């Protein structure tokens, strides 16, 4: 297969990047760990790679009330930050479980949130995929879909969102600062991703020219947390299921509970039913079991991924126990 060439442009600043990215055929690139392999298989074509990796928005700043991560911070720079490890361990745990050390030294946190799905139909140019080629059909629905989503699916797409970091950020109710041609706006991180619906190729709410400037995480009251990732091998693999737990416990009673799951949704998935089952209850194995039983609420599994419903319940129970241990 002959590859479509592209030009290279190194952005001189955020405003310059936004201006360049509003041009047709421009695509933002930072670490390149997702864009380059995808380009090689014809999964994405563009005329000009606008390189953001040299912009200043790469600092990790721990403030009394919040953590501010520049979108261009590399995964390992965040995971290795002593403030992050101490005050936002959920983020460090999710990043430690992400990809390999080599990839974590290249990949950026902003790019991680915007990574494309690992669904093999999306990444094979000769197979049908509505996300890559609208209207071509979803090959996974009646095909190989063991790894596919059980939440948020549509007739047109069942692909999972693969980020670990996103799952932790959803549980921590982080926000994104977004810069574009019309200025800056701030959205809850959970609002970044669109459900596939009838238009799975529209993946995020980012408008043309918009880029993520930073990720803002509140200084959490969660007194305990845990990111638990279940994979087909012990390391360097995407999640079959994963769960991020952030709990606040006072006098043995759960006063706040936030749970999000990865590997199971077309977008990072908040487990509201399980959260409600925890709130106001005593933190003990019975409570955790009851909450875990509700983790599959609303799931729409298919022939070969129905196992994920029970696996998710068990991942929730285990992550709750480990968070509280």
């Amino acid at each position, binding site marked *: 297969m002959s590859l479509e060439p592209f030009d*290279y442009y*190194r952005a001189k600043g955020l405003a310059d990047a936004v201006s360049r990215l509003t041009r047709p055929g421009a695509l933002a690139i930072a670490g*390149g760990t997702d864009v380059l392999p995808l380009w*090689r298989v014809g999964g994405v074509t563009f005329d000009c790679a606008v390189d953001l990796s040299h912009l200043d928005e790469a600092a990790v700043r721990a403030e009394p009330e919040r953590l501010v991560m520049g979108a261009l911070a590399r995964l390992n720079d965040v995971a*290795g930050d002593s403030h992050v490890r101490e005050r936002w361990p959920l983020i460090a745990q999710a990043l430690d479980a992400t990809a390999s*050390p*080599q990839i974590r030294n290249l990949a950026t946190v902003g790019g991680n949130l915007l990574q494309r799905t690992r669904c093999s139909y999306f990444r094979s140019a000769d197979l049908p995929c509505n996300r890559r080629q609208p209207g071509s059909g979803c090959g996974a629905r009646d095909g190989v879909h063991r790894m596919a989503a059980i939440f948020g699916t549509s007739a047109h797409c069942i692909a999972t969102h693969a980020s670990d970091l996103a799952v932790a950020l959803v549980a921590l109710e982080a926000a994104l600062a977004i810069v574009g041609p019309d200025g800056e706006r701030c959205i809850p991180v959970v609002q970044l991703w669109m459900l596939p619906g009838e238009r799975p190729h529209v993946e995020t709410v980012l408008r043309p020219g918009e880029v993520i400037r930073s990720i803002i995480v509140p200084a959490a009251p969660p007194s305990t947390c845990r990111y638990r990732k279940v994979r087909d091998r012990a390391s360097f693999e995407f999640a079959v299921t994963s769960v991020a737990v952030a709990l606040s416990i006072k006098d043995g009673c759960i006063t706040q509970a936030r749970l999000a799951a990865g590997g199971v949704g077309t977008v990072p998935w908040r487990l509201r039913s399980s959260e409600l089952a925890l709130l106001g209850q005593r933190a003990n194995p019975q409570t955790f079991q009851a909450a875990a039983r509700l983790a599959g609420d609303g799931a729409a599994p298919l022939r070969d991924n129905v196992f994920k419903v029970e696996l998710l319940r068990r991942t929730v129970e285990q992550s709750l126990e480990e968070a509280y241990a």
Partner: protein
Amino acid sequence: MSETPLALTVNGEPVRCSASTTASLLEVIRDQLALTSAKRGCDQGACGACTVLVDGKRINACLALAHSHAGRRIETLEGLARGGLNPLQAAFVAHDALQCGYCTPGQIMSACGLLSEGGTLDRATIAERMSGNLCRCGAYSNIVDAIAEVASV
């Protein structure tokens, strides 16, 4: 594909070459600079055979856009081996940490990055932090032995 000038520092030497805007750092290192220790295994960041150091940190050269790394300091196994075997290389030999040897340059550069990252190491930690490097001959146990010896654990 347009070729544009590219300046890098490779194994301590400033080099200038011409590279396609779409070239990976691996392609430049191998095809332009004729440094062939870094291997093209999977070309998608899964095997680690292309591991090199950029400004002291290990990365997959196949995933790195070459022009994005203009001006950076690149180290390959050729640089590590100057003036005799590096301790990691010697340990790989002593522990039979290879069979076919295809993955070995990537393994050693990855281990080199690992040792500079700090933190407490034990065998399990070494195995986890080397998970970005595949060895299809299955020399993993000996690879961990070799790295553990150099790390004095």
